[in-house]
């Protein structure tokens, strides 16, 4: 048969000049518009980033004093920040309290916190959790993966493991024109987390109860399935610099609107020199603000057109 004779009907494309040029040009003319579109979308996103780890304490002060301060649970860590966009960063001044929104920000405005140099993807860290325990009450004792944060005394910790233990616990309070802006902390976690991964009958137990206290504490009377901050935190980040969703502001912010944010600067990133940033951002169809994709599209498209021209030229001069 034709099969055994290896003579099946076959499409045998080869790289004729026509094809080559067509492919290059096609890539060029599809990529450049895509690039432009995503660049445009990214540009439309309004994003305000504020690094506050160095602003809330004076880094010039003695490092050990600083660490003592952050480790001490009793010390007052409230910090008030003005928010400006990077565009106006020149104008930003810690002492002048100018709060400005660079452009009109349409709701929802997402609030993120960004940590730097924090290896949430470290193998020891990633593995140190118990999904079974999080999912249902029955799995309470499934803590073998949770070392070294598994038990408090003899009793199992819920939620156990390093991830939960190091829960981020800075808090932000926003106000504009002396009016507090409500932060919507609902629906910041993935739906599947809420519905499946974190059980509604699992309540925190023995959490941060003794020994070294890592990060934030949890309300022992609220089931895990409603602790969205924990869920967000426990979705480990891929890279050492990462953002996590803190909440949403559901009102529009006008341009030049001044916003005051009061930060409880509890979380200790000073030990490992990690930055902390507060980010307010709108979104577009492409997501947040990042020009890389658009530029990459434009570059690849451009290279293709360039290659096409080169090819045509070579074809003409050296047939």
């Amino acid at each position, binding site marked *: 048969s034709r099969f055994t004779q290896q003579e099946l009907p076959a499409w045998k*494309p080869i790289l004729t000049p026509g094809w080559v040029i067509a492919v290059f040009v096609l890539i060029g003319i599809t990529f450049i518009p895509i690039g432009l579109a995503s660049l445009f979308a990214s540009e439309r996103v309004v994003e305000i980033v504020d690094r506050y780890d160095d602003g809330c304490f004076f880094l010039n002060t003695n490092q050990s004093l600083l660490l003592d301060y952050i480790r001490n649970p009793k010390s007052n860590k409230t910090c008030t920040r003005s928010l400006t966009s990077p565009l106006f960063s020149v104008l930003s001044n810690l002492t002048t309290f100018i709060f400005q929104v660079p452009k009109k920000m349409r709701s929802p405005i997402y609030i993120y916190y960004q940590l730097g140099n924090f290896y949430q993807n470290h193998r020891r860290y990633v593995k140190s959790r118990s999904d079974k325990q999080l999912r249902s009450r029955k799995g309470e004792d499934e803590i073998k993966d949770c070392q070294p944060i598994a038990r408090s005394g003899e009793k199992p910790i819920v939620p156990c493991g390093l991830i939960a233990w190091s829960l981020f616990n800075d808090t932000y309070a926003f106000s504009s024109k002396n009016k507090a802006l409500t932060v919507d902390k609902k629906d910041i976690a993935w739906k599947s987390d809420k519905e499946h991964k974190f059980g509604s009958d699992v309540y925190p137990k023995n959490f941060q109860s003794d020994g070294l206290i890592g990060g934030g504490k949890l309300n022992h009377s609220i089931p895990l399935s409603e602790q969205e901050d924990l869920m967000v935190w426990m979705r480990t980040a891929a890279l050492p*610099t990462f953002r996590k969703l803190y909440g949403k502001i559901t009102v529009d912010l006008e341009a030049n609107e001044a916003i005051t944010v009061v930060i409880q600067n509890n979380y200790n990133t000073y030990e490992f020199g990690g930055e902390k940033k507060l980010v307010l951002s709108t979104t577009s169809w492409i997501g947040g603000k990042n020009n890389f994709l658009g530029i*990459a599209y434009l570059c690849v498209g451009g290279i293709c057109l360039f290659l096409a021209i080169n090819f045509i030229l070579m074809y003409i001069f050296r047939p």
Partner: protein
Amino acid sequence: MRGGMGKGIHFSKLYTFSCFRSKFEDEHGQLGQRGYSRIVFCNDPDNPEAVQLKYRGNYVSTTKYTALNFIPKSLFEQFRRVANLYFLVVACVSFSPLAPYTAVSVLAPLLMVIGATMAKEGVEDWRRRKQDIEANNRKVEVYGKNHVFNETRWKNLRVGDLVKIYKDEYFPADLLLLSSSYEDGICYVETMNLDGETNLKLKHALDETASLRDVRSFQNFKSTIKCEDPNEHLYSFVGTLYYGGQHHPLSLQQILLRDSKLRNTDYIYGVVVFTGHDTKVMQNATDPPSKRSRIERRMDKIIYILFSTLILISLTGSMFFGVDTKNDIRGGELKRWYLRPDKTTVFFDPKRASLAAFFHFLTGLMLYGYLIPISLYVSIEVVKVLQSIFINQDRDMYYEETDKPARARTSDLNEELGQVDTILSDKTGTLTCNSMEFVKCSIAGVAYGRGMTEVERALAKRKRSRPHEVTDSSSDLPECNDHVVDSGKPVKGFNFRDERVTNGNWVNEPHSDLIQKFFRVLAICHTAIPDVRKESGEISYEAESPDEAAFVIAARELGFEFFERTQTSISLHELDHESGRKVNRSYTLLHVLEFSSARKRMSVIVKNAENQLLLLCKGADSVMFERLSKDGRLFLAKTMDHLNKYAEAGLRTLVVAYRELSEQEYKSWEEEFLPAKTSVSAARDALIDAACDKIERDLILLGVTAVEDKLQKGVPECIDKLSKAGIKIWVLTGDKMETAINIGHACSLLTKGMKQIVITLDSPDISDLEKQGDKEAIQKASRESIAKQIGEAKAQIIARKESSVTFGLIIDGMSLDFALTKSLESSFLEVAVNCASVICCRSSPKQKARVTKLVKVGTGKTTLAIGDGANDVGMLQEADIGVGISGVEGMQAVMSSDFAIAQFRFLERLLLVHGHWCYRRITMMICYFFYKNITFGFTLFWFEAHASFSGQPAYNDWYMSFYNVFFTSLPVIALGVFDQDVSARLCLKHPLLYQEGVQNILFTWHRILSWMLNGVISSMIIFFFITNSIVNQAFRRDGHLVDYEVLGVTMYTCVVWAVNCQMALSINYFTWIQHFFIWGSIAFWYTFLVIYGALPLKVSTTAYQVFVEACAPSPFYWLATLLVVVSTLLPYFAYRSFQTRFKPMYHDIIQRRRSEGSEAEVSAELPVRVKEKIDHLKERLKHRES
């Protein structure tokens, strides 16, 4: 030996102890000692002593495994491979906390891969087992306690059992022949399964036992055999039979070997001597020598490179990890407190950072293990098996006449077929059909036969065509192949046309009495057996060699029909000289003096109806002419003249002669001959030869026969193609130099433009020396002469280097002996490789193997040996690839070959099409395999660099373990099995394409490393583009962010797309299979994501719902995929598009021409560019050779 038994001269009666005691002691004295200790109690297997000996039963198992040891043994076989062992170790370590991923996900693909291979082994073994079961359960009749023959199964046979075998049955074990349906206890056996020879062999029982032909006579039959222990020597047997109070020596003549077949005998009785695995045939069963292809050897090196890369990056990783870990506690302060470095295991302990780093090194070895393609070996194996199936199934290599397809007996060497540099070919049966046709004869100095041989035609054509160049030789060949005799239907083996002789007209020729004698010799002097068809009365012959059959057939066609052979007589239907009627004449057969390669002649001594004693003899001219009597040389001059003409025409000649013997002379000779014949010692052959020599003299010349061994169909075209493909062809033949040269011309091995270099010892001074008989002087002179000739040849070649003259080297066997000595070897090789074709004539099997080895080792190139006979076995096993022709000369060559084809011309397709394809496929496949694993492995590494080298893989465990098994493996296999750069037709049309394989263009280090580099680049593009474009900001409108899992999925998606599209880019042959596998793999990835994500959390862990919930709704995910995939493909695509256009390889050119649809133009004239390219290739070829 056949027919050598006169009625009155019973072999064994002549045997007395007194005469041969010394010899008997000699040979059989060892009995009872080590190696000769077997004792068989005939017809008494239940004898307590026999039971005590515990000989093995007749149950035979050829399987590699048994049900019990299958698992451990096949596992052991599997883990002898370094790569598999590595993966096993990884799998074991993965149960420890060192493992970066769950143990199951490592184990699963390993189990799958191993399971697949084991399943294959299992299936193969099961087939063998089925054959065994069939053999073990065959029925045989055994003499039982109730004194009758009962049917039983083969496996129940015991040593000492008495069995009865019927005609056309196989012998169930090695038997001692007791008696047969013939009175004198002879029988015929066919040993096809043992040595592949199809002719019948005669065995005879001892005279003492030959009378045991009645069932009742066995009632009291008891005897003992002492004989050698089981061994693998098919052609020797030592033993004695103790029967009737006397010792009787046994030889191979009484032994019937298992797996041979009883023929032409109604039944025999025999005693089982060796059973089951003790039988000679089973002892002989060995595996053919295993050969590995060059590609695979280089692949091993690549694996080592990858291993080193693996170790290197693991080391780098562990160093960084060690530093990072050490820094976790500085001055008593916890740095990365969230890792709790104060309360940790040894693997992350800052206080023991170097130990942690070491353990991490092991983790790294596991993690980056994806650089080593676990499935490569298996995939290659699968691919090769499938390729072999295609070779086996190819209709174009199927020979209908004998119903023989091509057969790849091993699948390990497929790609080696695409790299053959030198073909070493046997002539007879390989280039020629080995079906002899009687075409001419010269009787009494008159030449008969008007047929024209192919060689003559070729010679004539050469003469004719000299003035005006004939470009295409193939166009007028079909006409030449037309051999149909005009009148009547063609007779196989007979192509003699001469009205002077045919139809009984010879009676009117001047020397009709000699003509009659001539054909009588042909009809009587042979060992063929007639086979009369009952219905039609037609007679066919079973002869030992095709030459012999041709003679008997010729005699039959000319009126001397041989129709019956008994043990003592030969009967002919003869045309009566005077009356012109057919009469029966019977000749009493007294002796057959057998043919041997040393004697080069055979004779029979017969007594005709007139009681005349005649010796009829035929043999090679070299031995016959010197044996003629003075009166017998009447026509010598003319006959020699004819003989030389025949030889020039490429015919095989034999001289026919006879003599009359007087009664007295015969008697006295016989007295000498019989003891020689019955002696049982090593000197027996010499004794017989000496005796024969005494009577085979004073012969009277009758004439010369000329038999044509036709060239196989398509041989000249095939050789032409192969040499156009740049393959050098050496013919190693046993023929005379003239014959060999003429055959060389006929099969276009030597062409008219070619300069012939002849190296021979056939010069006057050496023959002078030979006459003087001083052996040392001859040796010395010969060596000097050869050295001189080789030196001259070298000078000639160097002188003409620049011109386009090609050389053909012809060397004879004697010279070859000298040329192969240490001192001349290298210069001979140098000359030989510079010649386009080399013909070694008069070479022995051993020389063939030596030449093969010389070429293989000397040039370091791939050699292919092709042959059909037992004499080619050495050559076939020595060469890189052995190709057996499954033709007339039995199966021995095929059994020791790697590929078997039915006709020489199929070699063209096997090499140029299958070889080229397989080479291309395997090399591409290996390159691609490394590419895809490097692409994947390095993304892991880049990720590690961003995870403080902690050993956290970027992807979910199961994504990773399925990578090599599901998402990327099938397209590679499709590539390996189905890809074609150009179609079969174009492969054949452009034989130069084959040079890509010979020069190994597709598997240079440059190419391999480029692919690897491409892999590294791809991985970088994938990782950095993704991380830079996606990481910090929200990736969807609802503000959600990319976490570890989403990043993994996105990157993995890109990897799957990239490697599969890369595959699509690098092949240019898409059937539905390719489409299905490539796009199917990508589709399967998405399907897998959805299904795996939908599984309960317990199973899917981090992958839960990740695609459906997180990725799919995000336009960003899709846009990033598109960008990354296009970017990864761009470098290769750009390179390829520029390279195909501006620096094309040969297959690119052919492809382009094909697609431009200018087929007619291609064949008419090559365009300038292609021509240039071809010239360039030729140039390179020359450079390479020099």
